[in-house]
């Protein structure tokens, strides 16, 4: 596998609490990788190490063949862009201004934009469908529009590796699908996309590669079809799930099994309130 990101014995934590413990896994270049796992399993923590929010306690991280600690802040920002989970909407910053901040790793000390930078910013705004909102303050937009303004910033950074920390969490289903389609398009353009996702079926349907984590350790890593099985999901999430084929895409789709005592009631007899209309 041609790996864009390789972790070797990676250990991370907050203070004395270890969150990621000796993780070794590689993420393929030019593919869309989904990180899944229960809450607190360390999915977001891995992304935080890649942008140096958290120091690497032990182990090695390699970014396109270069060790993470050998990259300067600017070099790193030219290789990896990141959409954080919680998006602050700073006072008075317009959509176009936010998107233009994506050019800062490429611009001079004053942050002046050259002609080429402006074209890249405008292209990013158009791609996210927020060009006509360019002059508006980000804080005045709806949640979905804010998310797209931030994504325009990430796109304007033009990095070979794009990290997205729970990009779908606060969005309605239509916007979720838009973001997932965007991830797939970016991967098709040859960029490495790594996103933390909560919805397993979305991960199986849209991602090329899925990494399943639990309590800071690796449960499984591979193509959706190789990773999605009942045993893996039980080990990761303590759920009892069946894997079906998605009727649209043929990708794996999981449904939770009915427990024995409820199975009879819900399948054979509809809930009373539906029958009586109460």
């Amino acid at each position: 596998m041609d790996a864009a990101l390789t972790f070797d014995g990676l250990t991370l934590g907050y203070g004395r609490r270890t969150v990621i413990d000796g993780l070794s896994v590689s993420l393929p270049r030019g593919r869309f990788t989904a990180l899944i796992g229960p809450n607190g399993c360390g999915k977001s923590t891995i992304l935080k190490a890649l942008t140096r929010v958290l120091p690497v306690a032990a182990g090695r991280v390699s970014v396109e063949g270069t060790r993470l600690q050998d990259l300067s802040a600017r070099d790193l920002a030219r290789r990896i862009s990141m959409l954080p989970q919680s998006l602050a909407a700073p006072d008075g910053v317009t959509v176009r201004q936010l998107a233009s901040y994506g050019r800062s790793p490429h611009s001079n000390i004053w942050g002046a934009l050259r002609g080429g930078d402006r074209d890249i910013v405008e292209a990013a705004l158009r791609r996210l469908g927020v060009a006509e909102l360019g002059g508006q303050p980000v804080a005045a937009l709806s949640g979905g529009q804010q998310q797209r303004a931030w994504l325009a910033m990430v796109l304007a950074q033009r990095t070979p590796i794009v990290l997205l920390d729970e990009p779908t969490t606060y969005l309605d289903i239509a916007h979720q699908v838009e973001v997932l389609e965007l991830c797939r398009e970016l991967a098709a353009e040859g960029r490495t996309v790594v996103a933390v996702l909560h919805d397993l079926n979305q991960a199986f349907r849209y991602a090329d590669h899925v990494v399943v984590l639990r309590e800071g350790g690796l449960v499984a890593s591979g193509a959706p079809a190789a990773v999605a099985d009942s045993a893996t999901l039980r080990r990761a999430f303590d759920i009892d799930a069946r894997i079906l084929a998605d009727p649209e895409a043929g990708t794996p789709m999981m449904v939770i099994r009915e427990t024995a005592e409820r199975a009879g009631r819900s399948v054979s007899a509809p809930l009373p309130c539906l029958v009586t209309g109460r």
Partner: protein
Amino acid sequence: MARTVFWLAGSLALVAGLFLWSLWAFSAFPLGLADAAPLWTGGARSTMTEIIARVRLPRAMVCVLIGAMMGLTGGLMQGVTRNRLASPSLLGVTGGASLGLAIVSSGLAGASVPGPVAATLGGAAAWTLVMLLGSAFSAEASRIRLVLAGMTMAALCAGLTRLVVLLAEERALGVLNWLAGSLANTGFGDVRLLAPVLLAAGLAAGAFAKPLNLIALGDEAALALGVRIGRLRALVFLLGCVMTGATVAVAGPIAFLGLIAPNLAYALVGTDLRRALPLAALLGAALLLASDILSRAVAFPSETPAGAVTALIGAPAFLLLARRAA
């Protein structure tokens, strides 16, 4: 962009106008434009012209320098703490600097430490404590909590400063006078101290404007955009302490200027610090020139400390801002 140019040019003109006026405005001697004119026409100098050249001119220059430094310091501190209420006086830096200076000038500590250095160190100690108490850099840092920590520190420093003054009776009057924040006794020596500090700080602030804009997006986003947050914080901290220390050593604590000037600039040109910082410096200079003129006018012909005037303007402005920021 046009708006930024308009306000920069407008406030520059305002600074120039106030600068000129302050050369002769409200003097115990009858001074006027005619007395100041020989300074630039090179004509025959009267005694009045000499008064302007030796007393009023350096005083006006100190006003510009200190006002600009306070405006810049406030803007930088607000950027690095993501808190529009941050300013040297509200975060206790001015108080710490005053205490440091009071200790040295009252002769309690060996007089070997120069005033500006003592003030810088005092300010640095106070700011460090405030940042720790207010947990300013944690993700969920509360704006009000930081200001509360700062005001507590300012009150503590003010109390300790008073104690120092009491312990050093024979010099108490001079120190008390200085503590009110006055520009009355400034001269060219002060200009020579402040000018290089402002020049260096201005250049540094130019380099910090871009990363400070990015810090407003949150630490995670700023790091991903290549900002070296730790280094930036340390440098802004250093710059803020040196600027506050130098101004306090020259003119005593001038309250609220570091709060008002940047917030006025945001209202005029927006929060992009590349535009707001230079404007905040110019507005700070204009505000201090105006306060100094006013300080001579309120109880003419005797003088009121300029620090009292800025406090009178600043306190209601702070209340207004605090209501909006909370």
